[in-house]
């Protein structure tokens, strides 16, 4: 198996996902199979090959640092699951 149950639990924690025992088993099996397939990449000789992150030649996109308009606060906050006095409300962070 390419990925163990423990690794799935660890990665789920990193990704902020909750998973029950059954889901961990299913994911370990399915992702294991996918990673076995991905291992075919090991057959490609990539010594000296630059990695590509953007498929089309591009320079950094610079712009003038000028003040621009912004979204309306009310419209943005209207989507929040919890809000108070113009702020997002989150569970207590510091004990």
């Amino acid at each position, binding site marked *: 198996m390419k990925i163990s149950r423990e690794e799935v639990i660890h990665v789920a924690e990193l990704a902020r996902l*909750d998973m029950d025992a059954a889901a961990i088993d299913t994911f370990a099996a399915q992702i294991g199979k996918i990673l076995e397939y991905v291992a075919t990449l090991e057959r490609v000789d990539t010594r000296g090959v630059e990695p590509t992150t953007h498929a089309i030649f591009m320079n950094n*996109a610079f712009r003038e640092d000028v003040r621009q308009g912004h979204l309306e606060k009310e419209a943005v906050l209207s989507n929040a699951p919890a809000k108070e006095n113009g702020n997002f409300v989150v569970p207590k962070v510091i004990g």
Partner: protein
Amino acid sequence: MNLHELTIHDAHQLLKNKTLSAVELTRAVLDRIAAVDEKIGAYLAVTAETALKQAQAADAAFATGKVSPLTGIPLGIKDLICTRGLPTTCASRILEGFVPPYSATVMEKLEQAGAVMVGKLNMDEFAMGSSTENSGFQPTRNPWDLSRIPGGSSGGSAAAVAADMCLGALGSDTGGSIRQPASHCGVVGMKPTYGRVSRFGLVAFASSLDQIGPLAKDVTDCALLMNTICGYDPKDSTSVPQAVPDFTSSLEDGLEGVTIGIPKEYQTSGGLDAEVSAAVSRAVDTITDQGAACVEVSLPHTEFAVAAYYVIAPSEASSNLARYDGVKYGFRDADAGALIPMYRRTRSKGFGSEVQRRIILGTYALSAGYYDAYYKKASQVRTLIMEDFKNSFRQCDVILSPVAPTPAFKIGEKADDPLTMYLSDIFTLSANLAGIPGMSIPCGFSSQGLPIGLQLMGNHLNEAVLLKVAYNFEKATDFHRQKPPL
């Protein structure tokens, strides 16, 4: 002819002659949706009220003569393109109820062109899938056979165009998500060059691969939609600062001087259906009969494309989807206690299983100790895949291939086997890795009456040659005129 069956360019003539009003046309399309979408499930939301207002404005524009080819044309929009004031869900429970405070650049362009939006279209959740079965809300059925998938992830867009529930649609394509459903539903679909169309306001899946594009009833309509949505946008730093040609202007040029390339690796690819292979061969003959030259080309790294893609795309997705935390918008688990449990419960309940699988896969590939073996390796293979295309386009202008290895499969057939589902993307996802434009056009039917698509791929920014070849092919055939038996 029924009004909902009109193409965009035919409807435009009638609107211009004042033999048809935009309100009549919009009503006809809304009636069509009411009549058949119960069977298909293409729309997540029908925005009748806004549509009729936009149609009235379009009629006013026709009265003054200030119109574009899209003025008054009813279109459907994949539900991952932000529409100000109208819900945008990405077919995910985690974005249920989200109303964007701004519109995507493509929506502003459509609005300026006077187009009418009739609704938001179903898709695989966050565009992750090839069947639209991963929608968090409903499946979409293929109009040609209601027991089959429409393809994905832009399955709602393709099904809506095929069933005449809009005159054209926008989708998005990260690994084939426009071309594959277009192929399965018998419509025209185009993934433009990476950077041609602004991604501002497109909900991100894999940012280096995502691209918005049109689905249409014919090639002329596809070119008209391209004319409107393409162009540099300072709000998207990966947008290409290049002038956009009038894509309709070269459609009627002949095929003399055009060379098509047939990749030898695609012919030996496992799982290629005999009827699909035969339909594509006949299409190649039709195109060479019209004067195009034909050469064999080689894309030697084809067999590694699926593996490279399923490292790169989930890696980018795991990073992009970190923003769904239950704080700023969308769903939050109601009885979450402290902050971290709130994140975890919200995300686990809000995301479907395919999305969670890809987040886990991507997070794993990017995690400490694995980065070089997976993400870096896949990005190096990506370079080699790009070089394959670069070499091929020294010998030819357009590469022809199947879009999908088989016609549309049955709903549920591959649902439990993610790897098999991924492997069906073999012919389409190389174009995303290489950033080149690709297109699907109808090129035949299977013995069971299911549509088969032909894929055309071209060099960076050379959409015009794809559209020209497609237009010539379309003129010689009538596959695009066939209608599903609804």
